[in-house]
């Protein structure tokens, strides 16, 4: 059962686009794994990995560099990543949550601050968000946070990230 798996959940209706999350991530990880985007209409929102239950990026990576961990996280194993030119993972992710770095480690993605959590700390972005828009919660708890305001704001951002479809995190089939 995956309802107890912890994920990052950003309430776009609370977010003011201040970029504190991106800054904290950049400071902790060098290369930010959460990035600010601005829609044509001027809405600022950070795009990030949703750690999908059925993750397209894991299926899309032919080298097995992306894997679903036991606790539900989607993790990147940079040793196996070939930095393929097609960047299948980036193309596969409907949320724009994997980022091209232009460096030796070709892509960067969120691991929910694995090393910080091992030391008993919360993900850095969640701690520095001045608006309280970032939640480190279980999938189950995140359902209660999906208010009508959230849905409306999320749809606007997703229409920008993926103009054709506006997806929601994928569930396991059956």
């Amino acid at each position, binding site marked *: 059962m995956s309802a107890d798996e912890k994920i990052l959940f950003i309430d776009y209706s609370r977010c003011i686009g201040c*970029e*504190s999350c991106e*800054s*904290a991530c950049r400071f902790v990880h060098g290369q930010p794994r959460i990035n600010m985007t601005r829609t044509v209409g*001027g*809405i600022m929102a950070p795009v990030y990995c949703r750690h999908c239950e059925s993750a397209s990026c894991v299926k899309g990576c032919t080298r097995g560099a992306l894997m679903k961990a036991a606790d539900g996280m989607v993790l990147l194993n940079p040793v196996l990543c070939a930095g393929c030119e097609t960047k299948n993972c980036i193309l596969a992710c409907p949320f724009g949550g994997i980022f091209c770095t232009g460096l030796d480690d070709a892509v960067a993605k969120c691991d929910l601050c694995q090393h910080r959590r091992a030391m008993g700390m919360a993900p850095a972005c969640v*701690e520095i*968000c*001045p608006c309280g828009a970032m*939640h480190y919660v279980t999938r189950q708890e995140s359902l209660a946070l999906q208010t009508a305001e959230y849905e409306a704001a999320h749809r606007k951002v997703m229409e920008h990230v993926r103009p054709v479809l506006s997806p929601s995190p994928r569930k396991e089939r059956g």
Partner: protein
Amino acid sequence: MPISGTPMNFAFAGAGPARGNGRSVAIIGAGPSGLAAAGFLSCLGYQVDVYDKLPKPGGLMVFGIPAERIPAERIAQGVATLANRYGVRFHPGTKVCDRRQTDDTGDELSTRCIDLDELVRGHDAVMLCTGSWKPRTLNIPGEDLRGVYTGLAFLFPIRAAQYDKSRMREIDVANKNVVVVGAGFSAIDVAHGALGQGAARVSLVYRRTRREAPCGSHEIEQFEAAGGHWLELVTPIRVLDGEGENLGRVAGIECIQCHLGEPDEDGRRSAVPDSCAKVVLPADIVVTAIGETAAPPFAERLGLESVRKNEIHWLQMTKLDGVFVAGDALTGPSKIGKAVYSGLRAAQSLSRWLTLRAMSRELEYREDAPISREDLR
């Protein structure tokens, strides 16, 4: 829209307070960059003193940005954690002075003055995070009339009046005709603030179109939906004086029509004034919310211009040994996140400098890559 259950933690870099390292740092300014630097340094065991001219820490996060956007209690909680758990000492209402300069918004609330040299003598290092508090002006005739305010002068009292009623009064806009100049987030916040306080009519005036507006067309649509009026492609050339008993008070604002010209260096099409087409907008209150500039004290003495150009060997250190600078004071107005990053990097640099200097190994300093324009994009 519930607020996150994870409390704000400026000292997010570590798991908890470290054993004291016997060194002390003074931070001037308790805004995003100052608090982030204070958090980082206290994780390393520094004794941190934070000085701020305002009655409460938080800077523009608390006194400029409306509570609907940033909950003040979340910032207060983060500050309380720094004070109680990490032993950071806060000195509110204290301005570190350059006596020649007192025209920043918010100066009226500071009750004590401290000299920079005093801080330098009393601490191992000092960090200047004074932000950008000097409002930009339009430089047009009539801007000094009564009833003309800057964006900060309008927004600041809304929050500051809670702390000192005797010296701070909210600007009364009830049943008045308010014209706001600008199209950034502070202009939008002023416009919504005026609507919320019962203004009869609120108009936003912008020289370009909503497509170029820094706050984005979505915000403007929301402003219109709330009952505001949006006027684009007009630029003010004169604030009009009242007549008779209203002499010396604003009566309106004269604007000329613009059209869009060639894109300028940041890619937005510029506004070109058409000199013949004039309009007069009647107004009881005019708010010019066209941004702020940084006016850090001691800019010349600290050689801030060379820090900006990155001519000083140590990242974000000024001409004065052991005095560092971060945030808007260095880069000019930007976003909270950029100020946070700048504060963190300066704190890191400060700590490395003190550590290497204590061992007389300054020469081993590995040049940090400066914060690039790309990082601050």
